[in-house]
Every structure is written in C-alpha cells, then in structure tokens.
C-alpha cells in the first residue's frame, strides 16, 4: 500500500486538514448527546464496526487507505459549533463524496451523484425547451486559443492545468485542460457561422472542467468539477442580453422550485464580472453560516470573444458583423449549496424534488410472529408509492435497530419516513414523519395504507416539505440581510456575519478597499431594487442601485 501514501494523497485539501483535529475533539463532545443510541448500537453492531471503532485516528500517517473520516461512526459535529467540520462530516457520513487520489479532487459517490442527476434531468429539459442543443467539445485546448482574449487569459492563467507530454512524447504545443470552453467554442463558431441565417446558434454541453485551485473544499471548490456550460451566438446585442437574462431566470426558478434555495438574483459588479464578459448575472445563495455562495452565473459576453476570434456573420443587409454572445453555467458546487442551506445537526436535509430517496419505509417488529406481517406491509407500501412515481426505499435490514435506521436516514436527509409496526398492520395504517420537523410534531399517526389515500397524503406531504424548506430558508435569509447606509454600518453588519445591502456608486478601488478591510465583496446588484433616491454608502454621491456585500465561498 506504500503507493497510496504519496504526498499527493495524504496532503489533503487545506480545509479538510484543518478540520481534522477539531473533528476528534468534537467526537468526544458529541458522544453524550447520543450515548443512549450509541449503547443500543454497540449491541447490534457487527464485528466489522467494532474493528473500525478500535482503529486509531483516521488521519494518522499509518492509515493505509485514502480515508479522511470514519464512515460507520456516524457522529456529526454540531453545525453551530463548527460549520466547516459539520459540512465535511455530512459529506463523509451521508456518503456524498470522498477525497480523490490527487489533492483537491473529489470522488462523487452514488448518493451525491444522484443529486447531480436530478439537477441534470431538470435543467436538461429546460435547456432543450429554450432551444438549445447538446454537443461535446474536446477537453484539450491549444494554449494559443486561451491567449487570444486578453482578460480571459489573465483571469484563468494561474489556474490552468497544462498537458505537455502525451504518449511518451513531448507535445509540440502545450495543451490546456479546459477550465471553461469559450475559446474553443468561438474557434468553432467562427467556422460554422456565415450568415444571419445561422443565428442564433445555441448549444450546451455537460462536461468536466479543471481549475488548479489552491484552496479546495468538496463540491464548493475542487480542481475538477462537473458542470453544464451553455454558449450562444446572436445577431444583435438585444438578443444576447435577452438570452443571458432568460438563462439566469431558468437558474433562479430551478433554485427556488427544485432546490428550495431562495437565491438573490442580480448583476455582478465590474470587479466581479467573468474574465472576458461584458456583464455577469448571478444567483447568490445564503449558506447556513451566512456566507454567500455564487450558485450559477450567466454572462453577456458582448463581442469580446467574437472580436478576438473573428466570429462574424453576414447580416440581412450583406454587411459583416461580429456576433453577440452569452455563456452560462451551473456546477456540482450547487450540491454544496444544498447541503449548506438546509442541513442541520442531524445531518443532511434534502428538498423532496431533488432527493434521490424521497421516502424511507422502516418496518418495526419485536416478536418473530409479527415480522412477516410487518415486512409484507412495508413492501406493499413501498410498491404502492413506487408505482405512483415516488422515489422510495424500504430499509428491512435485520442487523440494525429501528432507532439506528431513523438516525441514519435522517442523517442522509430523506424528506419523509414511514414507520410500520404490528399495530399499524392491524389498523391498516402507517406513521408518517417529516425530516424537517423533529420529534412528535413532525409525526402523524394513522394514515391509511390503502393506495389512493396514502399516495395523495405522501405527495401532499412532500410538497409541504418542499415549500417549508424554501420558506424557512427565506426567513433565515431575510433575517440576515441588513440595510446599511454608511460604511460603518456595512462594517458592522459584515462583522456580525450578515449580508449588507446598501446604495453603491463608488469606484472599483473603493470596492477593493471594502474587500481588504472587511473580507466582503459585492455579491450582486440585485434585480429587486428599493424605490426612491439613494446615496452611495461610501461616498454620499447619488447612487442608482443598492448592492449586496457579503463574505463568500
């Protein structure tokens, strides 16, 4: 196993390494909280688990496997104590992802990947409905392409991964592993677009991209990540602007309706605009620690790339013009946003619309006599729900107690749990529990297990969970945005960990000064603007818009 003890493997991402010592500290703190259930588990736990419990701390250099945190030891650092440790614990314990073999990379495990698939399924349909076709561009881009758009190369060059050797030979030209595809797309658009009849050209691709980042965090920032990138070319600036707005609107609806994340949609400041874009629209989400997460962006590229690449068309008057372009993307980072928006001390909390498992059925029996009846009922409930298109799983494993299963599936964020015991079987009913409302309050007894009633009830409950997740995220967000009218108020709000919203018309330098002094950046000029005259919080000059400042991921 020596091979696995490479520097590249053991020097895990900085965030993770920092979290590790704290983790062991909190594990001890956490134990009393769960001592009752822990005792119960130890009776039931398999030898395998004991083995793991007996192993030395996982990050010890002698550890032979690429592991960061224990999997079976399901204790999660409380969110309020250490948000970052909590986040990493959830990712490990809910089996969303694991660290990759190369520093800063990530293995997306089936449960995490299923969330990405749900995101893909929704967006892919929306992209097609809005007239986009999928295609696939090569991953390798000649370095000379990247250099063509000056601000683009400036923005990306420190993060580029370069391939210089292939098939045992030094390559003639170094190749860039795509960090984004504007350059290669434009290179091809130049060959495909001749006349106005070829426009608009609207494509999308689902792909992996690479940015050699130094500070990484699973899902939020990794060397390689998955995303979709849309690229379009239009005959007029108006059309390009309309497209850029249309796509940020698709993202906004997705965030609200599917992910239950009440993002703030707006325009980036000049400083924060994408390298090579004229305008960048963004959706900004507030995480549980009140930091902002840029969850999706849509760029109006103007003619910046078409001028650099000579992407021209003959217009209806027979004149040659450069095309007007957009690009837009959402990535696996969004999964990090879902975790950090909804999760709590018990673990992950998934919005029903994106949850790989919407309902977990847990059969409960003590006496051997009851077992068959309970299992039968559980599996028929499962089939009833499945037939109605609900994503449901029945956990009938015998080596685990019901209590263990409750905790486990709560930790995995499954929105609804159905419990079925012997008494329920004789009553032909089930107990339904909501993940988002802990304890008895979220529990409803005596729901009929007959198909039409049960299906309607469960669907209704899933909808309720979906909208109540959105509502509580909304009130959290709104309670943590302060309206400020001076720089001192801004500093105070940021110091309290809040988002600061205030009128802004100051210079780029002053924006950078705010960043330097407070750590906050302009997240966006929100589309939703208060009415009335405004004065810049920094300069006192008239301001047209309010901006939102926040610390961000």
């Amino acid at each position, binding site marked *: 196993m020596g*091979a696995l003890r490479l520097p590249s493997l053991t020097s895990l991402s900085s965030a993770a390494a920092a979290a590790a010592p704290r983790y062991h500290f909190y594990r001890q703190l956490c134990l009393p909280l769960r001592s009752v259930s822990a005792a119960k588990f130890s009776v039931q736990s398999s030898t395998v688990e004991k083995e793991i419990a007996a192993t030395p701390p996982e990050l010890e250099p002698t550890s032979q496997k690429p592991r960061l945190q224990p999997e079976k030891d399901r204790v999660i650092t409380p969110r309020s104590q250490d948000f970052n440790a909590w986040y990493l614990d959830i990712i490990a314990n809910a089996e969303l992802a694991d660290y990759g073999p190369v520093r800063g990379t990530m293995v997306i495990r089936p449960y995490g990947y299923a969330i990405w698939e749900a995101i893909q399924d929704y967006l892919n349909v929306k992209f097609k409905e809005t007239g986009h076709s999928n295609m696939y561009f090569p991953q390798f881009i000649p370095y000379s392409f990247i250099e063509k758009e000056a601000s683009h190369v400036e923005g990306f060059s420190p993060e580029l991964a370069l391939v210089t050797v292939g098939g045992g030979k030094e390559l003639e030209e170094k190749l860039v592993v795509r960090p984004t595809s504007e350059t290669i797309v434009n290179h091809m658009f130049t060959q495909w677009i001749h006349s106005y009849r070829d426009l608009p050209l609207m494509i999308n691709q689902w792909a992996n991209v*690479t940015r050699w980042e130094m500070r990484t965090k699973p899902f939020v920032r990794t060397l390689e990540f998955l995303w979709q990138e849309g690229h379009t070319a239009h005959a007029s600036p108006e059309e390009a602007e309309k497209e850029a707005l249309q796509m940020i609107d698709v993202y906004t609806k997705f965030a609200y309706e599917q992910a239950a994340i009440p993002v703030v949609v707006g325009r980036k400041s000049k400083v924060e605009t994408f390298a090579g874009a004229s305008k960048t629209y963004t959706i900004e989400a507030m995480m549980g620690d009140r930091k902002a997460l840029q969850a999706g962006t849509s760029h109006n590229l103007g003619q910046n790339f078409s001028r650099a690449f000579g992407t021209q068309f003959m217009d209806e008057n027979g004149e040659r013009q450069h095309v007007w372009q957009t690009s837009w993307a959402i990535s696996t980072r969004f999964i990090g946003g879902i975790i950090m928006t909804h999760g709590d001390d018990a673990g992950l909390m998934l919005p029903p619309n994106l949850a790989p498992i919407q309902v977990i059925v847990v059969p409960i029996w003590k006496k051997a006599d009851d077992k068959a009846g309970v299992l039968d009922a559980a599996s028929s409930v499962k089939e009833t729900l499945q037939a109605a298109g609900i994503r449901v799983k029945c956990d009938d494993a015998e080596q685990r107690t019901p209590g263990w299963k409750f905790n486990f599936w709560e930790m995995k964020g499954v929105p609804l749990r159905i419990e079925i015991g012997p008494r329920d079987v004789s009553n032909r009913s089930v107990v339904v529990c909501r993940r988002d409302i802990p304890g008895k309050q979220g529990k409803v007894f005596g729901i009929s297990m007959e198909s039409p009633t049960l299906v309607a009830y469960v669907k209704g409950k899933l909808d309720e969970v979906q909208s109540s997740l959105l509502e509580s995220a909304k009130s959290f967000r709104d309670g943590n945005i302060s309206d400020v009218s001076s720089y001192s108020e801004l500093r105070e709000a940021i110091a309290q960990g809040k988002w600061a919203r205030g009128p802004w018309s100051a210079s780029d330098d002053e924006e950078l000064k705010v960043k330097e002094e407070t750590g906050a950046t302009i997240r966006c000029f929100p589309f939703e603007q208060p009415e009335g005259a405004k004065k810049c919080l920094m300069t006192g000059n008239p301001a047209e818009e309010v901006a939102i400042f926040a610390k961000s991921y």
Partner: protein
Amino acid sequence: MGGKDAMISKDAKSSNAATSSGAKGKKEVKKETGLGLSYKKDDNFGEWYSEVVVNGEMIEYYDISGCYILRPWAVSIWEIMHNFFDAEIKKMNIKNCYFPLFVSSTVLQKEKDHIEGFAPEVAWVTKSGESELEVPIAIRPTSETVMYPYFSKWIRGHRDLPLRLNQWCNVVRWEFSNPTPFIRSREFLWQEGHTAFATKEEADGEVLDILELYRRIYEEFLAVPVIKGKKSEHEKFAGGLYTTTVEAFVPNTGRGVQGATSHCLGQNFAKMFEINFENEKGERAMVWQNSWAYTTRTIGVMIMVHGDDKGLVLPPKVASLQVIVVPVPYKDADTKGIFDACASTVKSLNEAGFRAEADYRDNYSPGWKYSHWEMKGVPLRIEIGPKDLANNTVRAVRRDNSSKNDIPMADLVEQVKVMLDNIQQSLFDAAKQRRDTCIQTVYTWEEFAEALSKKKMILAPWCDEEEVEKDVKTRTKGEMGAAKSLCSPFEQPALPEGTLCFASGKPAKKWTYWGRSY
C-alpha cells in the same frame, strides 16, 4: 482591431490544416451549396467516411489531431443510447458515480500487466499555471486504478457487496496510430462499469447480463448485427480474467470492430488493491470484480455499416429527427395551405411521440432540402405539395431504400409508425445479410489466407494457443495490418473430433472468428 482579427482567424485556419493529420479531405470553408459527397463508399471508403461524418454534421475536425467535436446530431444519438442503457443498469441496481479525471502516477502503475497495456498512451499534466508540478499527474485512460483503492476502503463486510458502480465520462488515450472519428480518437466518451461481488458466479452472471445490453444497443438501436463471444488470451483486457465482446463487422473494409466489452477481472485487481471483505462465516475473502464499457465508437460503427453515397442513414430508434416534413410549394399554389398542412403533420406526429420537424426555410429549394436531410440520414421524409393538399394525402419517402408512399392524412400516425418500424428492421436485415455473406468458414491456412485477402470475417477451428495467435499475426503482417482473433462465439458450431487447427495443425479446441480489425 477588425483587420488584426481577420488575420488571426486566417492563421488559425492554416495552422489547422497543417497540424490536423486527421482532417483529410476537409474543405477550407464549408460551402453552403456544396451538397453531396465527393467520394463513393465502395470506391474510397476512408475518404467517404471522413467526408460523411463532417457533411452529416456529426463531427467537426479540430486543431488537435485525434480530438473531434461532437455536434448535436451525434450527441443526440449518444443521449438516446445513454437513456436506454442508464435505465437498464439502474434496474439492475447499479449506481452512477464520478471519479476524478486525474490519477497519480503511483496509483496508475499499481497493476503491472494493466499499466503495460496503457502506459504508452497516457497524457500527463506537468504544469499548473506557470509552475511545474512536483510529480506529473496522469489523465485517466480508464479508471480501474483510480477506483479500486476506494473499493478497498468502502468494502468491509459481505453486506457491502455487491458494490456496483458506473460512470459516464471522458477518457484520454494518446495514440499515434491513424485517428478515425468515433472509431479511434484520443479523447472519447464512454460509460465504465466497475463492480465487485462476493462470488465468481455472481460476477460471471453480470458479465453476460451487461453483454446482452450491449448486444441490444447494437442490434435493437443501431441496427448493427453483432456476434457475442469471448476474446482470446492474447486479446483480453490487460490484467483481467476473461473478456467477452460483441463484435461487429464492416464489410467495406473487411475489418472487425470490437463493439463493446464486458470483462471479468477475477481477483487480480482485488489482490493488488487489497479489496477484501469478511464473509458470512467471519473469514476474510477477496472480491470478484468486473468492468465493462461502451464508447462513442458505437456511433462510428453505425455510420460505417449503414451510410451510403448520399450520406448518413440513421436507424429510426436513434435518430434525433425521425421524420422531416418538407413543404413543396409551386408558384400559384396555396402556400399557406401547404405550410399549415406541414405544421399539422408535425403536430400530429409529435403528439404521437415521434421526433418530427418541418423545414420551412425559404432560401432553399425543396430539392436542396431533400439532399440535405438525406445527407443527415433522417429515416423518413414527408413531402407536402399542392397535389397532396388537394388529395388530403402526404408523400412519404424512405431514406434507406428511397421507396415512395402516398399516405392519407387520416392514417398518418399509423402508417408512419409502420414505416419507421420497417426501416429499423430492414436496416438490420440488410446489414445482417451483408455481414453474413462476408463470413467464411475455413479449415486450412491456404483457405484462411485467401479468405483474408477477400476481406472476409473468417470462422476457423483453432487450438486456442497464444503462441499460435502471435504466429498468425506475424504471418499476416502487411500493408493492411495483421489478422487477429476477433472472438470465439458463444454459439459454437459442431466441432467434430479430429478437426485440426487451421494455423498450427494441432487438434482444434474451438471455433474462432479471425480477421483484420479496427
């Protein structure tokens, strides 16, 4: 800035032509009116193929040799196959996941036989930004060595088994042999399944279940006949126990194509990567593993088998556009009436679940449109002109055999369904017939050599010895490339006692297909 831009773009084009060795027959500028192919499939297959993938808008050549741009027309076919296969493996309880693109060199080199097979083709990242990496990092040529350390970590007890994972991703193999779009490219898309079981029986069973899905992709979706069989020791996956394959054949070139493979890896990787579990008796045991993959190569095989001198011919099941409706207005005709009829035809077809569109462009003649959509291989064309309008009929023309049918509007959906089903079936039947006439059974070396020179797919009795296969390769080396074993079919013809190996003269053990291959 404008003048400079123009120069840059010219430079890009000329360097394109110079560096892209794969871009044979590529025209400098795509002509809008230059429909039709300049090469015939039977006369110059290689040039025909290079041209048809570009003119059919499947592929665009790119500045980096061996890398191709997959255009929407190709990606939509990939998506249709993806949807089928993904749903089937999910029914089998196989889960999707995603492992990193980057592999550290030590992990890559862990399995010796395995890496010997791939090492010469690896692309290496050596720099990030301006700084040199301490250790170069490889880009995955396949993911066995990336994934299996995690299998070792995740698998503890028998309850963790089976572990059945799949991923859809890109892989890179930096080959220098002649790149061919879809068939051999330096970056390609694929799915790779990796599974671990407690017993060999379970692993064996899955190998065949997956192989059957691959057969269905080829035969039911792409209408390409394949032969299921087992690879020889020499041709099997490096580091595995045995390899099963679906083999296709391209009659024009007389070459076999490994369509997709499903490998049983045995316990070799489990040993190297320490993938152990505690079985029900509390003993430590090693897992049994499989890996299996199909790639964008499938699309290339389909093009080669079905395409003709007019362009692509797409089987209806994978065509992103199954029916193209072309209005045929005349000077004095009721143009609006014709356009309305086209719209309602498209609407009825879409509602019935067919993928149909109308081509209303006014800057192209109907004749141009016919050629255009024939080039793109749309299975069925519906023409609506004044006469059709008057008779309340439409004219349907099949892409595969050009046969014309007048269909009453009232029977539209029903008849289109029948026609598309027929096209799908007859593409398969025709391909099978062509393939079958290429299969030749031989018993001696002389017969073998002659059949090979006639570009046959050769079925021969074989002693199943690796040395003999190597010898066959040496003896057939030539301009066209050496012959090798393609597979030993699962369906074995009778092998009477005393039958001798065609190559060694030793007693034969099995029937095996031989030929040149891609």
